[in-house]
């Protein structure tokens, strides 16, 4: 038992560490707030993992086999890596007040492009050729993100419409690339990304960690995070404060495309094939869910990268749990929906207030007061 509680503690420590990464605020009060913000997602994740113990007593066991790290918890992170990546990009997009529905298609396109190039190689294990294929696929993901950003920030199309275009058209594009077939490859360097190990750790976890670190650096070490939050929080005030909001939004969509591209490589590498139809199917919905569970409001503004990572892990842990506790396959989707609904409700302060303090006076809508102030 002691090992298990240790693992739980580790989980907490990780979460706290992340929250500090996200919000390196000097004031102790802010750190308290950040911790508070992630409290519920972390609790849900811990609860979810603990519930597995009932069905799988050895759930938290981690062992090193042939220099590789194995264990159920490791698997959750490993299989959750693509979702973490997509959700990271989605976090920035949602923080600007937008949304990106096209990430699933970008996943498919990038996987297809990489696999196509590799299948054309004379020697599929040739490292430079594989790297070139990866580079081309990632460049394509940047272009696709740029396309979304240009439509939204440049032309002024609503984000949901603009990305819906690529969501639908992108599937077609992926099928064009694969020629309507599933491209199967046999390339060990490419296999490394999704299914390989490096320094005893699954390589996909390392990639997810690296991109998370990149996101944190990009947003919290530069002023990008602040400007994104300002644009998402109050676009007009941001304009009057001199922020070039279009540029900021463009960058968010480009980053989102890039993250989806990396996820696409990972997914196709894991199965050594590219399926234009099914790769990354519905991942945009899971990603949006992960962002919301992580505490970033859909309306934009404040975002939490740590929260998003935890949110993605919650979703992956849920999928894993469904398999391990043996929910019949035909009810898994329904089961997942119920759990997600409960998670979202538990997280909502308004809902908690209503349930736990049923008789408490309803707080007056804050919006009304200023309305009275600017009465005309």
């Amino acid at each position, binding site marked *: 038992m002691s090992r298990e509680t240790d693992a739980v503690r580790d989980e907490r420590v990780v979460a706290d560490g992340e929250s500090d990464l996200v919000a390196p*605020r*000097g*004031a102790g*009060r*802010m750190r308290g707030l950040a911790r508070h913000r992630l409290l519920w997602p972390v609790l849900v994740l811990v609860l979810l993992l603990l519930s597995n113990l009932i069905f799988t007593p050895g759930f938290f066991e981690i062992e090193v086999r042939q220099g590789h790290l194995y264990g159920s918890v490791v698997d959750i992170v490993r299989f959750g890596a693509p979702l973490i990546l997509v959700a990271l990009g989605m976090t920035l997009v949602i923080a600007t007040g937008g949304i990106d529905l096209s990430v699933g298609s970008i996943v498919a396109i990038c996987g297809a492009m990489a696999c196509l190039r590799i299948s054309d190689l004379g020697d599929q294990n040739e490292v430079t050729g594989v790297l070139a294929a990866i580079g081309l696929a990632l460049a394509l993901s940047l272009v696709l993100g740029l396309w979304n950003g240009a439509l939204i920030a440049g032309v002024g199309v609503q984000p949901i419409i603009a990305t819906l275009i690529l969501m639908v058209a992108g599937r077609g594009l992926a099928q064009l690339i694969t020629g309507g077939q599933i491209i199967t490859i046999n390339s060990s360097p490419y296999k490394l990304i999704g299914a390989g190990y490096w320094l005893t750790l699954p390589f996909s976890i390392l990639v997810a960690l690296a991109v998370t670190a990149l996101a944190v650096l990009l947003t919290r*070490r*530069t*002023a*990008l995070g*602040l*400007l994104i*939050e*300002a644009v998402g*929080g*109050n676009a*007009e*005030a*941001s*304009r*009057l*404060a*001199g*922020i*070039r909001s279009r540029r*900021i939004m463009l*960058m968010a969509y480009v980053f989102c495309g890039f993250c989806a591209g990396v996820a696409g490589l990972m997914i196709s590498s894991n199965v050594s094939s590219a399926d234009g139809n099914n790769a990354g199917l519905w991942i945009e919905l899971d990603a949006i869910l992960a962002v919301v569970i992580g505490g970033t409001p859909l309306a934009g*503004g*404040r975002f939490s990268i740590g929260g998003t990572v935890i949110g993605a892990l919650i979703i992956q842990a849920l999928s894993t749990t469904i398999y391990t506790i043996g929910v019949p396959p035909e009810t898994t989707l329904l089961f997942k929906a119920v759990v997600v609904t409960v998670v979202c409700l538990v997280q909502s302060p308004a809902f908690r207030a209503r349930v736990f303090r049923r008789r408490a006076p309803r707080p*007056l809508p*804050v919006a*009304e*007061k*200023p*309305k*009275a*102030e*600017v*009465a*005309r």
Partner: protein
Amino acid sequence: MADPRPILTMTGISKDFPGVRALADVGFRLFPGEVHALMGENGAGKSTLIKVLTGVYDVDQGEIALDGEPVRFSGPLQARQAGVSTVYQEVNLCANLSVAENILIGREPRRFGAIRWAALRRRAAELLRRLQLDIDVTAPLGTCSIAVQQMVAIARAIDVSAKVLILDEPTSSLDAGEVGQLFQVIKRLKDEGIAILFVTHFLDQVYEVSDRVTVLRNGRLVGEYLTRDLSQIDLVGKMIGKELQVLEHLDEERAPAAPEPVVEARALGRRGAVAPFDLTVRRGEVVGLAGLLGSGRTEVARLLFGADRADHGRILLDGVPVSLRTPRAAMGRGLAFCSENRRTEGLVEELTVRENIILALQAVRGWARPIPRRRQEELVGRYIQALRITPADPGLPVRALSGGNQQKVLLARWLITEPRLLILDEPTRGIDVGAKAEIQRLVVSLSKDGMGVLFISAELEEVLRLSHRIAVLRDRRMVAQMVNEGVDADRVMRVIASGESS
């Protein structure tokens, strides 16, 4: 002329919002067949009174009686069914539907659940004829002018056997001809015995169309007057009021302004916002903009800052013509603009005090050059201290601060950009006396250090106390500019009321 018995009486109405008393013991009467103007500056409580009447807000205290019967509406729909209809400032109709559909939406003539389109068009045409309007009822509303849309909104409102018609600033987006057309309709309805509550900021219109005036100030009733007994200057005086609180005396004398201009506007204007005007602000000079709400004060500021694009005239900085097409361009040239709408155009409420303060400076530097954390804390700390922002915690979300402190946060945001011209739009509105005095003192000391300040305020006393020169706006036109020597509030009020600069 008016029936002796009022159709609508509101007595002792009070309404509180958290932290604000929006209405305090306000009374209001409305007689059938008269046009009653409800006047007051921003925040006086006009909108709240209307919303309380139509059931948008609950009444905290007081009685409302319609036709002698006590009533309390649960919402605008119920109010309308009882005969109290409202037409709002922004036309809230569906531009994609036809005129006829808009007029009768929600109560279309039906047979077996299907809409009888011919009957619908006939009814709509009848209603418009009652207003002596000749409009094609099948045309999509979006193709009609704003004035016609306004009339359609009125036709829609009076369809339900209206006894009381509330017009909330119906003329603010109309031009002179359209206003005349609207007034024809109002007079016709008045002759039919409908009681009309009319809210406007245009003084001339009050005198043109209304029989009776009720003035509110700071949520309190100032009084009810017959329009013909009340001179324009008295009306303005009652709306603005004298500053009752004794502000701390500004012991610092205004320093003389330097001769060289910072910014000059030459025939700057924008159609529909403000007529072309000339305005110069010199180094170390405070120029006050006086005028009633909606007179174009804010529009002048926005044009200078590039928040709106001017379609007329040009701007000179240090005598050189410049193009200020965006706020960013204006900021790059040392301009700063502190908007009157703290919540919608100023603060990003979920961000902290520190983040809000550094926002403009960071925007100028661009995302790739973050202000180092230590420098941020030093800057923010200095301004929190200098402006006495309380609580002095830069990590607090800015929405947790009081109005006065939020205003100081905005001031700090612009002061750290070290502007050469600071445009302050109503910087002291809705904040307590202490904070108000501090901000006034700050304006004086900034101008002493050579900053040009354009100071906009609805409070004449304040404008008179701070400004070297005063420009007066009236009905979106700059009608006078005067050097603030021996000028008193009465004289400025006369200019606001009459538009003549003598």
